[in-house]
């Protein structure tokens, strides 16, 4: 072994990290014969001892006691408690499946939505559930952009834009509709929080985006930490997917009609 090779190994030698017995013996043989390398190893060993002393010194250090109670308090005041996930290992699988599904659905829905934009709307106050399931609702957070023109007497339902909290949504009233007819179509919903599909906070989407309503197997809910009634495991469940302007799905929430 030469000095250059010894230099490459000296840190691990001083840390006792060299597993290869032959290599360690060669290094130590060289160190016995070479004063420079012996002093080099001595310095590294002193450093190892100094680092170890600091490590021992800090072993008893931990966060202030008050922090635990602050966190427990924060935990209690959370808006939504996510129930048990049956199997955590399925999460990645479902996340991938959902993301792939959403990309396909988004393409179809976006084209359809643009087509619908060009036609006058007949019914908006209460959306029949079958149409509603696949409707893409655009929103944009920049307030100065002009809204699309609509026929005067019609009003679109206010879409709930909050991303946090448990949100109950009811469509707005429409005086032009017969009450009994409307009552058949009014959709009341309750939705979960948006759950991030990536590390990105949904509220960071500054440039607008879309919420797309999709249907997923009920079992998909388990992937996001929601309970699934095993009797209805194979049934469909509605979900809103928050898409960025880049078409990437950023968050999802599950919706229940009642």
């Amino acid at each position, binding site marked *: 072994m030469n000095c250059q090779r010894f230099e490459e190994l000296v840190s691990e030698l001083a840390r006792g990290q060299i597993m290869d017995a032959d290599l360690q013996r060669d290094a130590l043989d060289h160190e016995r014969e070479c004063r420079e390398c012996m002093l080099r190893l001595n310095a590294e060993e002193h450093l190892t001892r100094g680092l170890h002393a600091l490590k021992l010194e800090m072993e008893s250090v931990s*966060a202030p006691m008050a922090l*635990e109670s602050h*966190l427990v308090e924060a935990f209690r005041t959370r808006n939504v408690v996510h129930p048990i996930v049956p199997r955590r290992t399925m999460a990645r699988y479902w996340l991938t499946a959902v993301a792939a599904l959403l990309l396909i659905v988004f393409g179809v829905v976006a084209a359809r939505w643009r087509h619908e934009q060009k036609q006058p709307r007949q019914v908006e106050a209460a959306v029949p559930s079958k149409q509603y399931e696949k409707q893409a609702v655009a929103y944009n957070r920049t307030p100065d952009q002009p809204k699309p023109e609509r026929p005067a007497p019609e009003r679109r339902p206010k879409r709930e834009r909050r991303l946090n909290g448990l949100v109950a949504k009811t469509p707005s009233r429409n005086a032009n509709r017969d009450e009994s007819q409307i009552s058949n179509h009014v959709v009341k919903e309750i939705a979960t929080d948006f759950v991030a599909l990536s590390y990105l906070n949904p509220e960071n989407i500054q440039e607008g985006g879309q919420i797309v309503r999709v249907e997923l197997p009920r079992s998909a809910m388990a992937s996001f*930490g929601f309970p699934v009634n095993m009797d209805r495991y194979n049934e469909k469940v509605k979900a809103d997917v928050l898409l960025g302007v880049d078409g990437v799905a950023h968050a999802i929430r599950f919706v229940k009609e009642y």
Partner: protein
Amino acid sequence: MTAAFRPFRMKANNDQNDGELLRLMLAGDEDALTLLYRRRQAAIYRFALQMSGSPSVAEDVTQEVFLFLMRQGHVFDAARGSLPSFLLGVARNYVLRRLRGEQLLVTLADDYEDEVASEQTRTEPGLLEELTRAETIEAVRKAILSLPERYREVVVLCELQELSYVETAEILGCAIGTVRSRLHRARSLLLTKLRPAEQADQTTEVTVKSARCFA
């Protein structure tokens, strides 16, 4: 009329592993949070303290890590590493954000640090040999805090947290070879900083520049 579906709830206890406690915590189990916190908080707090040198930053980072876990704990994937590694990775992000945002530490420019460390083969007796234990600890602590971030974090993780190269690579999101070479470099820098002042003065006059370590 059918009864409402109620998920089966297992009570959190200290025999459960991190993954089980996380699952219960995300299901709303407060005891699981407490157990997980008590099990993992110290390593996170110490890591943040060793990286920043500031107890208040360490406390804030520890809090942020567990708040993140409450909000986004479902993104943890056991197939990609252990929960302690995941938590230290999150802690690292918060620490670096704080350090870069607040300029908490006055560190020397990386180029300068590398240049000085490039004069390898320190054969002179070091400062550590002449210090008491308390002085040694303080000198090493200060020397670590003065390292550039990319070297400081490998020293903290490999030497002070005693994590393996594999675990450190998981946390830093880099190759194992990168960890190894950075640690070697970091130790050379520490030895330079820990040499007696008169020796350091002599060597800083010599400007031998070697290839930068980009590992």
